Every structure is written in C-alpha cells, then in structure tokens.
C-alpha cells in the first residue's frame, strides 16, 4: 500500500491522445488529492493571430488528428457567425454525417483501443473474467482487429463526403465544398447500414435500438450480449458504477444541428439537493470564464471572446498548461454522458442519480453510438443531390464569432475576433479543457481532480482517467 501522505506521479499515460501526468496524494490507500497536469503546449491561439480568417479552417483541425472534424466544424461555425453565413439545410446534413461518423468512430476507438485493454492488465489477474477478457480485448486481439476493420470501412464516408480524413478541408462557413451525387448517396447509405449490422452483431450482440431503449441502470445490468455484455459483467464485478464521480454538473452545447434543431439537446443539468438530476437549464455562454490562476499562463480570468493565451512557465502556483474553464464559477463535466444527461435520456438520468461514475461515462458513449447510428442512416437517406450545399459570402473586415459544437469528448467552442480583415484574437475551449482543468482561483479542483478523490491505488486510477476519454492535444492546443 502507498504510504500515507506520500505523493505519486502517474505518467506518462499511454492510450490517451497526447501527454498527461497525474499527481496523486494517498492516505489509507486512497487518493485524497489529485492534480492533473497537461504537459503539452503548442500555441495555436498565438499562431492564428494575424492570419487570414479562412486559414483557421486549415490550421485549427490540426490541433487534433482524432477530433479534426469537430475542430473544423467549430471553426467554420465561428467564421460563419462572424460573416452572418449559415449552411443551407442540405449542407448542414452533409456536415452532420461526417461529424457524426467521427464522433461514433471516436467512441468505439476509445472502447476497443484505449479503455478495454486495461482489463487485461496483470492487476486484474485474480478475477474470474481476466482470461476471457485478455483473449478478447488484448492489444492486437480479435476485438481490436474486428473494430479496426469496421472502422476502415465506415471511414469511406469521410472519403466520399470530405475527401480525406483526418484534416478534411470540405467544411466551409457556408456549407460543404462537395455536393454528393446520387451514387455517393447510395454508397453512404450502404456503408452506414453495414456499420449498423456490425454494431448489432459485435458490439451490442442484439439490436442497437433495444440498447438505446433501456430505461434504468438495473435493466442495463441484465444485458449480457456482445462486447457490451462482456464489459458490463466486468464493470459489475469491479464496481465501476460507484467510482469516479465528477462535479455533478453536466454541460452540452447541443450536438449535431440540422434544420430540425440539434439531435442531442443544448443546456445544463445539475444534481439537486436530494442528489437527483434536476431540470434542464438553458445555457448562456456569457457565463463561461477561463481562469489561468493555476496554469503556466500570465493572463487573468476572462471570457474567451476577450481572453488571451500568454505562456509563462514561471507562474507561481501553476502546475499545468491547461487553463480552468468555469460555468458561472463552477467546474462542469462534458462528453457523451453529459450530452445524454442534458438530453434527458432515462438511462443516463438514472446513472446521473447514482453519481455519474466511470461506468456512466462508458454507457453514455455506448448509448450515443446506438442513437447516432440510427440518425446517420436517416440523414444519409435524406440527402438530396440536386439541392444547394453551400451559401456564399465574404469574410468581414471587422467582426466577432462564436462557434459551438459537440466533439466526441464534449463541448468545443471557438471564439474569433476579426479586424482589418485579419484574425485579431482566437480562443478555443476544448472538451478536455473542461474535464481535465486544474484548480481555479478559489482552489476548486477540476472534474477529473474531483473524480479521482477516493479512488484506490492501482489500475482503478487508470480506469477513472480513461473513462473521460481524454484528448490532451486538444486540451491545451
């Protein structure tokens, strides 16, 4: 057992995107205090200043090779907002198809490549399921192979609509550069149906619709089919449902907006006084503040539309490159589970009522995979090859824009100011910036820092950290 009062640094973390360290203080074999350290800084917000506004469409996707469509969509929205441009309905559909595929693929890449291999670790060797889990979910094992194959196939959607992935160029402020023709539409529908079959057969072991229709955490535990069933048995045995609770405040910018509105609602939901998730509250982005008091940054707390990024490795009391975003002064958790809670899915609300654990985050992703797959098929059928896919308009000489989307890992915002035809200011708050934020000026820890408190030493720390599906390259950018 770790000695009381001792400090341990866990890192480098593998199977996360980018570099991460976690500093843990133990007492009685459990974490009593955690500091999350983002160790990678590149300075995109500095680089964008002075560039032509549209260059953000090429530069910002390169913040991240995993969520590059999300970055691209957020940049296009921010620029569109500044220019008063909105994509036509069919352009929105095309964007949501590629964005939806990216999010869905990210969720399953997390499940098969990043999260499940932890259960093959020697720490779990004494468990009855360890042998079977190792055979199925080990690195290079049958589950990974099957997913990588299915993944390469569904990525044809990116080829058809976006030319290339990662780092597509097709998404513009007014829509998409490529209008799919009738043949493309057929191919899209076929690929998405094929993926849905794979989900039914391999991931869920039964119809994804049946999984999406689950209403309570106890109904969920009865699911014993497919890779999901294998995971649920492990989660039950290890008690993943009672560890890793975040701040109890969930945030979503509203995901996958088409002409009919967002597929998953925008807003905020928090645990009320009785520990139950409360009503859906509206989101006002004016309540967002980025607080650099524990970041290697010389700035002061500011709204991202007026904020700045001033790297300062000597800042007193700082321990991360990440600034601390706060919503009306409070840390907020974001991601697939947050989206499902905000959207009011009964199973997600049930899991939120149990505290919102490691398990809840995994189930949030699985729910979203099931619901997104259905929407993707609907959207691709609704494509009209003869319609308009883009509106034209010039970038303004002066202007401001806000671009909000939901990346796989949660709420992503871009804020741009344009002056004399150039970018004057560009600020980005990524999902993991919220989830892995350091402390703020009043010393309140970020969501992961809270989730780790009470965690026993050993593999469980890894499960808690990975349950957020961190993307460290987005976090600081």
């Amino acid at each position: 057992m770790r000695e009381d009062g001792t400090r341990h640094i866990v890192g480098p973390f593998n199977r996360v995107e980018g570099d991460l360290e976690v500093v843990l203080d133990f007492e009685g074999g459990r974490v009593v205090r955690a500091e999350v350290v983002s160790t990678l800084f590149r300075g995109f917000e500095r680089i964008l200043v002075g560039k032509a506004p549209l260059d953000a469409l090429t530069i910002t996707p390169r913040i991240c090779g995993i969520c590059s469509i999300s970055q691209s969509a957020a940049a296009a929205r921010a620029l569109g907002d500044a220019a008063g441009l909105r994509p036509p309905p069919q352009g929105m559909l095309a964007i949501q198809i590629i964005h939806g595929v990216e999010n869905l693929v990210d969720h399953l890449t997390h499940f098969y490549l990043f999260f499940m291999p932890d259960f093959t670790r020697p720490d779990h060797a004494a468990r009855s399921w360890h042998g079977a889990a190792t055979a199925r979910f080990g690195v290079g094992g049958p589950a990974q192979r099957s997913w990588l194959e299915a993944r390469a196939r569904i990525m044809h959607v990116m080829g058809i609509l976006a030319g290339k992935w990662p780092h597509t160029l097709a998404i513009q402020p007014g829509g998409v550069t490529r209008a799919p023709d009738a043949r493309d539409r057929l191919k899209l529908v076929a690929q998405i149906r094929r993926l849905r079959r794979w989900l039914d057969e391999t991931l869920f072991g039964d119809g994804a619709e049946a999984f999406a229709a689950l209403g309570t955490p106890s109904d969920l535990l009865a699911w014993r089919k497919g890779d999901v069933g294998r995971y649920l048995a492990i989660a039950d045995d290890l008690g993943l449902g009672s560890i890793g609770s975040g701040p109890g405040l969930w945030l979503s910018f509203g995901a996958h907006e088409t002409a009919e509105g967002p597929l998953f609602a925008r807003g905020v939901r928090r645990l009320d006084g009785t520990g139950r998730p409360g009503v859906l509250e509206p989101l006002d982005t004016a309540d967002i503040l980025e607080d650099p008091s524990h970041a290697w940054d010389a700035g002061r707390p500011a709204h991202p539309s007026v904020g700045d990024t001033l790297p300062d490795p000597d800042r007193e009391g700082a321990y991360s490159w990440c600034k601390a975003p706060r919503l009306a002064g409070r840390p907020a958790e974001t991601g697939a589970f947050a989206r499902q809670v905000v959207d009011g899915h009964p199973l997600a609300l049930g899991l939120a009522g149990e505290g919102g654990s490691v398990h809840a985050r995994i189930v949030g992703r699985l729910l979203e995979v099931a619901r997104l797959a259905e929407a993707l098929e609907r959207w691709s059928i609704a494509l009209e090859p003869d319609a308009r896919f883009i509106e034209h308009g010039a970038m303004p000489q002066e202007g401001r824009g806000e671009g909000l989307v939901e990346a796989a890992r949660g709420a992503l915002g871009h804020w741009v100011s344009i002056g004399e035809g150039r970018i004057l200011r560009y600020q980005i708050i990524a999902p993991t910036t919220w989830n892995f934020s350091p402390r703020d000026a009043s010393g309140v820890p970020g969501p992961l820092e809270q989730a780790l408190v009470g965690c026993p030493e050993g593999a469980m720390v890894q499960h808690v950290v990975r349950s957020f599906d961190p993307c460290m390259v987005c976090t600081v950018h």
Partner: protein
Amino acid sequence: MQTETFYDVMRRQGITRRSFMKFCSLTAAALGLGPAFVPKIAHAMQTKPRTPVIWVHGLECTCCSESFIRSAHPLAKDVVLSMISLDYDDTLMAAAGHQAEAAFEDTIEKYKGNYILAVEGNPPLNEDGMFCIVGGKPFVDQLRRAAEHAKAIISWGACASYGCVQAAKPNPTRATPVHKVITDKPIIKVPGCPPIAEVMTGVITYMLTFDRLPDLDRQGRPKMFYSQRIHDKCYRRPHFDAGQFVESWDDENARKGYCLYKMGCKGPTTYNACSTIRWNDGVSFPIQSGHGCIGCSEDGFWDNGSFYDRLTNIKQFGIEANADEVGMAAAGVVGAGVAVHAAVSALKRAQMKRQAAAPEKISEEA
C-alpha cells in the same frame, strides 16, 4: 541468442501461412515490385531477425497514428501492427506509467543499434523544452536518448519532417523538425498532414523487410511515393489544360469537376501520392471533395500566405519546365503499371549505399 524472425512473430499472433504469403504479395505490389519479389520478401521475413520499432510522440496531433491504424488492407495493417506492437508506442501499447518507461529503456538496451525509431511530432526547444514533457522530462531528451542507438529514424508527417502548423509564425514553442536536432543518423521523411496510410505501411514494411532505407529524393523523402506532383496525376488536369476552372465552391463548374487552381489549389507545386493512391481506402482525396490541395507534404506549407491564395509561380497550360525531374523514377511505382526495372535499379542503388555501412545485411536480395 535466440533469433526471432518476423514470420515467428506473425505465426505467434495467429496469422496463417496463407495470409502471410498474401501479405508478401500485397507488399510487393504496394512497393511497386514485381511478382518475382514475392518469394524474396517471404524469404527475408522468415530468416531475418525481427527489426524492433520504437514509436515516440512529441508536439503533434496524433493524426499520423490515426492514419496508420486505418491502413487499407486489414491484413497488411494486422501484420504491421504485430511487427511493432511488441516494442514501444505510447499511444497504443498496453503498459502504462513506469512500466511504459521501463519498456522504453528495455527496448533501447536490448536492441542497441538495431531498432528503428519512428517519430511522430517534433520537439519544442523554447523554455528548455518545457512545452512538451514526457515522463517528467522534456521530449527532446527522450528523442535524443532513443535516437542515440537507433539505426535509422522515420520522421512521420509534416511535424517531424518540417515543423507543420505549430511551427507557423511566430512559432511560440520553437517547434523544430527532427533532422535539425538529430544530425548523425539516417533520417527518412514521410511528410504529409497526415501521410497516406498506405504510404506509411509501405515505407515501414520496406524498411523492415529489406533492412534498409528506400531510395530517397534530395529532401530525404522516399522516391517511390513522393516523386510525382499531385497536379500531374490529378483527374481534373484536363480541365486545367483546357482553361476550365471552378470560380466558387459548389458552382456549376464545380459540379462538372473543373480544375480548382483558381480556388488556391497547391497541386501544381506539391509532391505526394494523393492523386494516385488516394485516401480512406483509395476512395477519394481533397481535390475530389471539391477543395484544392493545400500542399501539406511540402516544407513551409503553413506559412505561405493564405491557403486560398492562388499560386502565381507555375507555368500555365501544361508547359512544364521540370517534366524530367518528375517522370521516370517512380511514375509507375504507385500507379497501376509496375516499372519493375526502375524499381530494381533503385534497389541496387540503395544496396550500394547500405553496403558500405553494413555489408552483411543485403545478400538475400542480390
């Protein structure tokens, strides 16, 4: 010491003999080598000791790894993953924390002078490397440590090769390409943001199979994938020659598939295999999605003015000064027609280069 071959590793990972032979023919095809090379590749993989790979990540966005694991043929990808999964990769490996650091050191110690170092991303040099810390130390230290005993280095993508967007003005972290930090090792650059999956697997398979670098151009890029311009193999080229251009996104001309030069396409000055191999299993590439090429495999593409500025330094309407530079060497290599004899002479040249350094290692292909 017991010698483990690639074939041993593959068999252990459950890959059948039949699949192995299929992999060898795929590899030969991907590298533009004729059927006569299939038994040579098979022989090499069954007799040569496995070459370990250490894969490290600096300032980057992981897009190279993303591209790599999406490589077209599932079998090729399986095999390549099985080749490298035993060693060190901080994105995909199973170990974590101190265990991971130990695996890193073990691999270096065990295979001193014998492993290939694959670098994704680059080291930032400002503030003593503080902008990228791995295992409590600046990434540049990890890079130097791994490079010291590597026999060759692969610089994956625009970051490692040239710097990429994080090196854009004012380059806040002083992100620096690998070859400016490591100057005493053979380095192969595989630029692109990211590189095409099949180019990545092709390069690494070639190196693992033949135990040497492929033939490189003056910039250090493998000729087999980077010796032709996007423009020369672009399916929209006839429209350029005919003076038919897209004037705005998705206009009438765009739907007819006219040339994107006026929309800022950098195809005429970019050397890569996008217009032949294409992306996402050969489905498409940026120009096919209606957007111009941004030249992401060229040095400095991030700082050449707006990505939508029209190129002004190319000859118009098909009169190309540098046709000689372009042609020959590998025109057929990535395309359908296989230029066996060109490839063979490329191999011979590469052999000569290697012979001086390691005369024992090349007898199989002679």
